[in-house]
């Protein structure tokens, strides 16, 4: 299932760049595709919305799924494949907390990623979108934000399943409407942050499970964006380093000295001042 979707996406990507041949698929095939995509959204949602549960672990460690993931290049180390269940669950829970749920971590929350704060505009926007589509956010094992990655992915999964139902019932209008909603949701929310965020997870994770899931998230997001023909800037970027804003500043960036003594003295001695001259604001 997984490889089918990724393969389909590969084909579609190729088709976008070489749009000469557009394969016609039947409503049944399209419905199956929607359900397959929904399954991946649900898998990723489960990975990021909360700590890995025993059931999820069992499902992911099944030979079939591991093989399918391996086919698309997702390969876990021994810390995931060879560890006993109980110890692994503990290790993954600690890793989840370190990455996503404690001071110094980077919560998978759109408001935090794009605004640096919890519960900013995206939280309210997606909550309204959910409401318009008849959803409310309920508490899982833990309460979370409407713009948490897992919740946003779950929303798309729900819409995809509705789209599949519509296709199976011959309701093409509904299916198209849902497709548009999904595209808009990607353009306004997921597309802005999940690719860069996935790269960040990949780099920061100490455990191969989250490292690979970070890769998977980025890869899947890129495929979905390409498949939907979206052009959306990754505002997250998952940058490794914080850059200083270039350009002139109205203060001496070589603080801590609050007066200009050092710069002036250095300049007087011909050593080159480090003090920026203030703009003449007149």
């Amino acid at each position, binding site marked *: 299932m997984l490889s089918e979707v990724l393969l389909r996406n590969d084909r579609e990507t190729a088709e976008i760049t070489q749009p000469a041949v557009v394969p016609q698929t039947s409503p049944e095939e399209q419905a199956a595709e929607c359900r397959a995509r929904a399954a991946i959204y649900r898998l990723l949602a489960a990975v990021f919305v909360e700590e890995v549960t025993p059931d999820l672990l069992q499902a992911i460690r099944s030979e079939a799924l591991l093989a399918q993931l391996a086919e698309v290049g997702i390969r876990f180390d021994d810390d995931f494949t060879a560890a006993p269940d109980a110890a692994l669950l503990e290790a993954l829970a600690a890793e989840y907390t370190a990455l996503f749920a404690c001071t110094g971590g980077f919560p998978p929350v759109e408001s935090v990623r794009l605004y*640096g704060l*919890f*519960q900013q505009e995206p939280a309210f926007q997606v909550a309204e979108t959910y409401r318009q589509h008849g959803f409310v956010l309920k508490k899982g094992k*833990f309460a979370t934000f409407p713009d948490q990655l897992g919740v946003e992915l779950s929303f798309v999964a729900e819409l995809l399943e509705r789209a599949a139902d519509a296709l199976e019932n011959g309701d093409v209008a509904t299916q198209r409407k849902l497709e548009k909603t999904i595209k808009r949701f990607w353009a306004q929310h997921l597309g802005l942050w999940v690719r860069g965020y996935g790269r960040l997870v990949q780099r920061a994770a100490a455990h191969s499970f989250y490292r690979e899931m970070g890769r998977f998230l980025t890869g899947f997001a890129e495929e979905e964006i390409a498949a939907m023909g979206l052009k959306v800037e990754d505002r997250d970027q998952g940058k490794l380093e914080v850059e200083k804003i270039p350009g002139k500043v109205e203060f001496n*960036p070589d603080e801590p000295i609050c007066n200009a003594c050092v710069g002036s003295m250095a300049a007087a001695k011909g050593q080159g001042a480090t003090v920026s001259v203030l703009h003449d604001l007149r």
Partner: protein
Amino acid sequence: MDMPKVTRRTFLKVSAAAGGAAAAAPRLLQAMENELGGRDYGPVTMAQRQAIPYTCHVCNIQDGAIAYVENGRIVKLEGNPEHVSTRGRLCAKGNAGMWYTYNPDRVLYPLKRVGARGEGKWKRITWEEALTEVAQRLDAALKEDPNTIMLKWGRDRTGGALIRFMHTLGSDNTMNHTSVCESSKKVGLEPTWGPDIETPDFSKTKYVLNFGSNVLEASYFHNPLSQRVTEGRIDNHMKIVTFDVRLSNTAGYSDEWIPVFPGTDGAVALAIGHVILRDDLQDSEFINTWTNVTVEELKEHYKSFTPEWAEKISGVPAATIERLAHEFATTKPATVFTYRGPAKHLYGSYNEKACMMLPILTGNVEKAGGYCLPRGMGWPQPNPKPPKPAKHAYANHHHHPLFPLASHGVSHLTPFDIFEGRTKVNVYFTYMDNPVYTNPGAQAVWGQLFKDEKLIPFFVSISTVIGEETAYADIILPDCMFLERWEPESMPNSLWPWLGIRQPIIAPLGETRETRVILRDIIHKLDPDGSRGMKQYWNFKDGEDYMRQHFDNIPGLKDVGGLDFLKKKGVWPIYGKLDSRTGKVVDKTGREIKAEYELYKKELSDSDMMGATIEPNGLIVKNGKAIGIRRNGKNYVGFPTPNRLLNVRVDEWAKYGFNPMPTFKRVPWHETMKDDELVLTTYKFNVHVQSRTASVKWLAEIVHNNPMWINPETAKKIGVKTGDLVRVESKVGYLVTKAYVTEGIHPKVVAIATGCGHWEYGRLATLKLNEKPQFGGTEDPDLKNVWWDDKGVHPNIIIPAIADPIGGSQAWYDTVVRVTKAGPNDKYGDVFGDFQKHLEAYREGLRFTYKGDLHRKMHPEMAHWPGPEQSQDQGQHS
């Protein structure tokens, strides 16, 4: 028509002549005043934002404020213009308060430690799991001894919930933070006049002697008092003289800044008192009527405190002392204000007492423009209340056996009591505290304690973020931020008493819970069916229900709607309306609302006197309780002391061999300082509290590092200039920081601010933006604006824990250091503290306690004191 030839010279002439006509012309234009607030509009939507009043809690001044909410988000905070004390003003810290709420470094779920203590490995757990584990550990501790459950708080504004929790458990082992704050100031004041703080009437005074307070920036009641300082200075032409080792912004705003050697403010105050009494400038009637001493006794007692004596100790010229004494005594009204400057020394309580004597000597007590009693309001506790524990803990926040006069505890010595086995802990709770950063010895002492699982077997932190202390916790219970919780408030921060509330502006984020709900849930877990008798004390639905139990039956407030009034207004009473032009609160006719003065002269009514008896000394007693004092044929309520007088002589101090009269003791190790030794002091920035604000973006951008202030004369001797690295070495450790050479500091002093140099507390405080693993920084576009890469250096690790033997206060400003140019192996930010040396320093400090061998040596005037055996632990244990 010929135009007149107008040159500058001619129109100046015309102008001079036209003055009268100009004055007579109607003035239709008035300088535009800004809106005072209370309303706000979205710049995009243009819709009025929802305004919810609350009481700020970034620091502890408790300013009245309003939060504006747009689309469910807090978008702006500002002062509440209906608050008579803070009058619509909110400081930088308060304005930045919303960043706490949305801070991505917040802890939003219960966390359990999964690695070694302090290793930083956590697992998110459910509340059910957390409460179950905490309850199990409490259950085991209760079986051994309830007092093995300790709770130490940094800032408790829960309105009694923490004490209720501990008393419900039957534990007396409660600790506050006051000994690292201003406790010796409190202990210097309380036995003399009752309350633990004063309210100087700055706006109406003509003269202020300010000893060691930086009221315009940081000290207690900074916002409301600094407004009044400015009014007094501008509208009332008051003179202000500031004694401080450092040219703070308050000192800079003063008419005179007098650099004083650390810890010698008391000597200067006594010498001023000497001049006042010597030259008969005192208010004899006030002293003889309202104190427990006579003018003659005082004249005799003050004889030896000459200006020349004080000059030798303090460095303040005798002529200056003479002049200031005359100015202070002859300018009416005049007042005094003190803060940590005099109090944070080995004998800080004596210093405070000496300063307080000045308004007493001059009769400036409870006068308009004088030195006034604080005005506060209380509120009832919900019933039933748990009884006080039957068994005393070794020490608590009111009592320590070696410091029986320290009515606010000696909490900074707690680790040593635990290390040395006097206090046993099975479960340690911490709430809004961070002694690993804020206390003397810092990580070298408190870090050592918390690392040790034998000494602290189970450590529960009720916290909003992982700071230096919470990093050692076993369980973190996520607390709400102040904009998400209910709390009752009142602060005596002006002459108008008020009650206020903090109320949730938004629902708590994640799974955070407000403190009293967390405590209730723990108790309910311990006693689910009420059979242990605990649950009955935690009978409330939620925070609002608890507030109703506090507020709905207060006379006066009840009549206007109780809690519902407070929810709408944030504060009660509303005294009047803020005048936008004067910034003063006025009545309907535009007249300023006056404060009440001379509270001690309020006469008892006939009904008050019914059944009362008057003792020979004038004390009026009713039902075994002193209710007032008879003076000059009238029955007055008097001062809130047991004898209803101002106790210049504090007999209780004498019981423990301390001088009951105003006196001064020099810090012994300051007397023997070598030429190359200096005194290290610390101070607070105007945009930071002790430890909680370094992660607040706006504030961190304004101040994020703390170079060491050093006088040019001193810097020249060691060959240091601004920006150079210096090594600062005390007897317990060293640090490496940068020098800031300035005339604004006493030549024998170096000063390093607190609030910087964090190693925990989130990405912005620690500046771990570029370190691996790449947590933080990357997800926050705002952090791209972090243009600084210097987080400063925190000094507390090189400051030993020494307590005032009277007030119990940490002697923050007594540490002797050597400052040298940094060596080749010294790196900026290096800090080191030696635990054993801290332990030795602590033991050395105990030698000054009433049981210590140096006590008598320091008090030759108390030779008649029979000794500690006769005064064993008579201190109040509450």
